[in-house]
């Protein structure tokens, strides 16, 4: 699925060059559940952005199957994300002026699906996350846990093969965290590829493979021994 070939990313900040990723070589197979861990500023989010086709590497290539992502034009990368990827954000990133239902409809709207199809699919997803009675609520009218569930529904609504998550449990109480991790486990069972950037050892422990980033250096920790083939619930 994903293949990084000698990927380096430099940032220029106030005249100084910062290396966020240094010569990374990596392969993530189809259906893997990968956790990327590491201290703050180690390049985790850079790695996620590179995988998501949102940040061009300074050198090297990022492949998704047989496609070199950054050889595609910007609009084609957008279409690629729309068709194959789903994102989960630490702060949910719900659009504040849209209802829960409308927020979940966004990826389908971007794919150009009809309003009826969008609504049917979004209602189905929200009901799956126990929000059938919150369809017309705006994010400000929902609890933190409900907001993350809306965000999860939005991630899964276009049936993505890849889920990229940035600190998905960072702002959540233990109960809500469990809902998110259960959703990832379920997605993994369905054969989706999941890449989670996290500080949370519990969240990292649910992945089948762990990668560690330190000062832009990527280390593959290999198979996660805590991972179970069929993940079970764990308490926080």
């Amino acid at each position: 699925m994903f293949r990084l070939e000698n990927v380096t990313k430099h940032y220029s900040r106030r005249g100084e060059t910062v290396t966020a990723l240094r010569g990374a070589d990596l392969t993530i197979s189809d259906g893997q559940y990968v956790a990327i861990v590491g201290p703050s500023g180690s390049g985790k989010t850079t790695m996620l952005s590179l995988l998501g086709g949102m940040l061009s590497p300074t050198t090297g290539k990022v492949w998704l199957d047989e496609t070199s992502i950054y050889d595609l034009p910007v609009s084609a990368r957008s279409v690629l994300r729309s068709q194959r990827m789903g994102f989960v954000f630490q702060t949910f990133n719900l659009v504040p002026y849209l209802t829960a239902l409308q927020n979940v409809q966004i990826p389908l709207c971007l794919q150009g699906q009809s309003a009826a199809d969008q609504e049917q699919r979004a209602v189905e997803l929200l009901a799956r996350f126990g929000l059938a009675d919150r369809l017309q609520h705006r994010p400000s009218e929902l609890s933190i846990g409900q907001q993350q569930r809306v965000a999860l529904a939005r991630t899964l609504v276009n049936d993505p093969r890849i889920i990229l998550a940035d600190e998905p449990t960072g702002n959540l109480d233990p109960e809500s965290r469990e809902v998110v991790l259960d959703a990832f486990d379920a997605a993994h069972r369905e054969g989706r590829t999941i890449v989670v950037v996290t500080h949370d050892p519990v969240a990292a422990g649910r992945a089948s493979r762990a990668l560690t980033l330190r000062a832009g250096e990527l280390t593959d920790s290999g198979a996660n021994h805590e991972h179970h083939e069929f993940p079970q619930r764990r308490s926080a």
Partner: protein
Amino acid sequence: MTLRSMIWHELRSRPWTVLSNSLAILLGVAALVAIRHITVHSEQEVSQQLSQLGANILVLPQEATLQDYYAADQNGGTIPEEHVSEIYLAGLTGVEQVSARLNVPANLGGLDITLTGILPQSELEAQNAWQTTALFTAPKAHEGCKKAKLSTTDLESPESLVTHRAIQNLKPDELVLGADVAERSAFSAGDTLELLGRTFTILGILPTTGTVDDSRVFAHLHTVQDASGSGPVCNAIEVIGCCEDAAGDLVPDLRKLLPNTKVVTISQVVQTQVGVNRLMANTSLLVLVVLVVVGGASLAGAIAANVRERRREIGTLMALGATPSFVQRLFLGKALILGLTAGTLGCLIGLATAIVAGPAWADVTVSVLPMTSLLAVLMATGLAIVSAWWPARQAAALDPCLCFQEV
């Protein structure tokens, strides 16, 4: 969910911001529409008056100023009445009608009025026939002129003072009242009244013209001369040519004939009025252009601020698959709605203002000018889109990684 509904929900979520963003454009369009409507109708009115009055020429005292055609004979200076005979005797080509006027202030039952002395055409014709004993001195017809000569029947009724600025018959003890004077003094045709120590019978009441003629009382020129003690003089002589071409040729001839007078065509007088109006309209337009530019700049600033506020949302949309083109259309669509709404509302407000204020400001009745209104709305919409173009491009070029940043 569509792009349009996303724009609509965002606009609805902050109505006051939307209002303030588009207020400058709304006011600019309202002012533009109101002024254009009044100006256009005012110009049409002047043009109509010009057309009705035909090829008129005014012979005025040298010191006269040209501000208002209808009040051109109220400058105060005088010229000898005998100029009327001189004009006839000269036998100038194209002269169709000559009318002398003398104005004196008077008081009618506590009402200050202008008493205007005029010479009826019947007396002019008699004088002309008596003085011009040979055919060769009579005014010659203008070659190629297709305009029918005025017949005496055209000038029989008092209303001809309004339509043709002359009257066929007016006895020394008869008066014709302007519309305002009649209304305020409550006199009607056939009544008698005292003026300057003389008794007059009212021959008729003129219809409303919207000019100073409404506040005049017309009497026989010689009666006014005698009653005011001004002697055989007049303030102005109006010469009506048979057509515009004749008027053009007559002016130099009259200037040569009457060197101590000022000879002007009605076009010149009206052009003075139109020129003043146009100057005002152009100045207003300049102010409006500035206002519209300010409106555009204000909207551009507002959209740019909106882009800054929504950076995280834009990044998220891009992460979810929004193309740069979608993001650009998100903001251009918003500008389109703002421009269209502000333009339409501004146009309606401007129209209402013009319809209400037109009669008061410019004595014109204003009706809707569809093309002007449509143009104003399109201009506002275009301005909004042009103003939002750069901020929208900036939004489309934002880094999608913004979606990962902490709030």
